[in-house]
């Protein structure tokens, strides 16, 4: 049972990164996307963004029912960055929707766009910071330290910041690739291709920064990395795949490119997962929280698996249907 839950948790996390990432990233990319950008982006994400975000909710629900102590521990220690994430989610979702559905186009438009762009950047940064704090090992489960030690230090440092920037760059990369085939005009497609390259390079740079700052914070990520064969393999393929993706950029083919990038991102996450497994939260005094020592009783996990399976049986075909309806509509529009 535990294994199944871990897999589903991992899958929803990866899907959230890919789908939610494309979504947040679109807001980051919009700044550089030129005048047509807004229309393309609105059209591409409006029908799907709510559904994309349900993966995050799913991950949270799995966390609090399956691994309640983990949820409780990060809720306490990372209250501040999580609060920022929430504000970001609220502002981003509402400003996007307001902009998209407002019937009148006037100066209010500027404000929606401003909030949409800012929160599209801030939210992934703080998601990354939260994730960074979970693995850095400065969280303490005993409530003994000062306010700074308990609630600020665990996340307020260069390592977490570079995790944050890494997430933002990654999301920008995913979004730019996603938008290449959503754009209608060749000039626009070229622009997204260029942006995708830039963001890919940025992501790689930020990835290295993550490893470097980890050393600075005395967290020996690279040792752990070399100790895990799986992560070496995963990151090895990531490195090999990079030139292939650059090659694909030359003659963008939507399907191939999206597939390659999904594999790329998934492998990054799997590699990272291999480094961490089975630890979810590193604790300051070594009382790490793992999948094993925080798992809910069997009855809960069992019910959770049933609910998730029925859920997937309903959700996956509907998702397929949603995408098919839109593809068909787009083709009709092209022909008419």
């Amino acid at each position, binding site marked *: 049972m535990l294994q199944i839950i871990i897999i589903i948790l991992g899958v929803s996390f990866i899907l959230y990164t890919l789908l939610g990432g494309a979504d947040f990233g679109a807001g980051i990319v919009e700044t550089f996307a030129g005048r047509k950008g807004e229309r393309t982006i609105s059209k591409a994400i409006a029908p799907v963004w709510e559904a994309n975000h349900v993966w*995050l909710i799913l991950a949270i629900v799995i966390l609090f029912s399956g691994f309640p102590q983990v*949820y*409780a521990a990060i809720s306490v220690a990372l209250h501040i960055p999580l609060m920022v994430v929430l504000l970001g989610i609220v502002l981003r979702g509402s400003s996007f929707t307001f902009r998209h559905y407002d019937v009148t186009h006037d100066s209010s438009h500027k404000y929606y766009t401003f909030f949409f762009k800012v929160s599209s950047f801030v939210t992934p940064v703080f998601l990354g910071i939260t994730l960074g704090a979970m693995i850095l090992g400065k969280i303490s489960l005993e409530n003994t330290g000062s306010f700074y030690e308990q*609630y600020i230090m665990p996340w307020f440092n260069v390592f977490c910041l570079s995790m944050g920037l890494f997430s933002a760059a990654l999301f920008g990369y995913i979004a730019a690739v996603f938008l290449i085939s959503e754009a209608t005009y060749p000039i626009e497609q070229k622009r997204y291709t260029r942006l995708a390259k830039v963001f890919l390079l940025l992501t790689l740079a930020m990835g290295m920064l993550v490893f470097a700052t980890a050393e600075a914070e005395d967290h020996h990520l690279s040792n752990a990395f070399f100790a895990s064969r799986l992560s070496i393999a995963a990151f090895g393929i990531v490195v090999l795949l990079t030139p292939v993706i650059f090659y694909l950029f030359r003659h963008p083919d939507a399907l191939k490119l999206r597939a390659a990038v999904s594999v790329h991102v998934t492998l990054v996450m799997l590699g990272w997962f291999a480094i961490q497994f089975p630890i979810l939260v590193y604790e300051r005094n070594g009382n790490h929280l793992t999948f094993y020592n925080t798992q809910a009783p069997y009855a809960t996990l069992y019910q959770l698996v049933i609910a998730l399976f029925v859920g997937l049986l309903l959700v996956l075909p509907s998702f397929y249907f949603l995408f098919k309806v839109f593809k068909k509509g787009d083709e009709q529009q092209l022909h008419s």
Partner: protein
Amino acid sequence: MDDLLAARLQMAVSLGWHIVFACIGMTMPVLMAFSEWKWLRTQKQEYIDIAKAWSKGVAIFFAVGAVSGTVLSFELGLLFPGFMKHAGPIIGMPFSWEGTAFFVEAIALGVFLYGWDRLNKWAHWLSGVVVGISGVMSGIFVVAANAWMNSPAGFTWENGEATNIDPVAAMFNDAWFSQALHMTLAAFVATSFAVAGVHAFLLLKDRGNTFHRTAVRIALSFGAVAAFLQPISGDISAKDVAERQPAKLAALEALYHTSKPADLVIGGIPNEQEERVDYAIHVPGFLSFLAHGDFESEVIGLDQFPKSERPPVLITHIAFQIMVGIGFLLAFAGLLFLVFSARWKHLLSSTWWLTFIACLTPLGFIAVEAGWTVTEVGRQPWVIYGVMKTKDAVSPMPGLQYSFYTITTVYVLLTLILVWLMRRQIATIETYYPSARKKD
């Protein structure tokens, strides 16, 4: 402000805000699907116009509902980690079913909103029906989690730990049915009367407008039936509370002293020091009847509970009076509507009737907020009734008031923007929809 109070207020603001969108999300898809169905059957332009106009508003509300719901799923832990640590594994099940329902709802809504010209008409209509069903399901599931807090089941509590967890028993706890029924009806009452009220108001300004006239009729048909059933369901809830949470019942009726038979206290202001209710109307024996179905039975008062286990009486009692008062008013309005539609159709376009309906616009939502105040404040000081106190569940982080201020400010601003946006949407109805320019 102390941290416990800040956390409770933040929870209240966030839930009170979310519930508005949740009610809209449960009801509007059903109303839209109904209107579209009428169009499919009659081909009258106004029906499709109404469905389309509503769907524009719903898209906005749905998005805000989704983000405010996401906030809640984090906030339960951010504010009450002690609660979630124990409750998570027990009530995770309704939440995961709820997640499934949300998912289906979000996807079907995407199809519905963007599929007007891309789908076969009946397939499009069906997607609207799916949105409605999954919306109502998600409401029912999440209320199961709340009902569990009122009527804990499916575990044994030993030395501050929950053991023998049975998520199925927890989900189908004793309070689940009455609360889910009452909540679903409430969503229909509140949203339908609000929608009817807004269109009635517009109709007063533009008499005979086909679009608004039809919209009022559709909304009231649903609102009237739900409002008529609501007091019946409320009575089921009250009997349930009397049995499972006597302290809450005593607080909402402001019954300080155990009585046999017990009077029903209508209105009045509870005086917490003197333990009596000033300026109230007493109906002899009626509370005994409402609580236990027998005019002579005994009803437990607050004196049976130590002071530390009594909920705040003033807030609970007043909130309860507001909810019940509105409940009867709306049930009466619903009854009039049904009678007029059957016998005196012309009255439905009279000025006094439209003014009356327009005045009812906010009342359903006020009753929803009041009802939740009854449930939640009436459960205090417990977060899990009889098992865990709220003060033992709250986050140890100091300075929670700053979260509260921030969230409240953001929500107030968003509310203002939403009101403004809706006014803009309404202002353009005539431009976009032919039937809104037609008179009859």
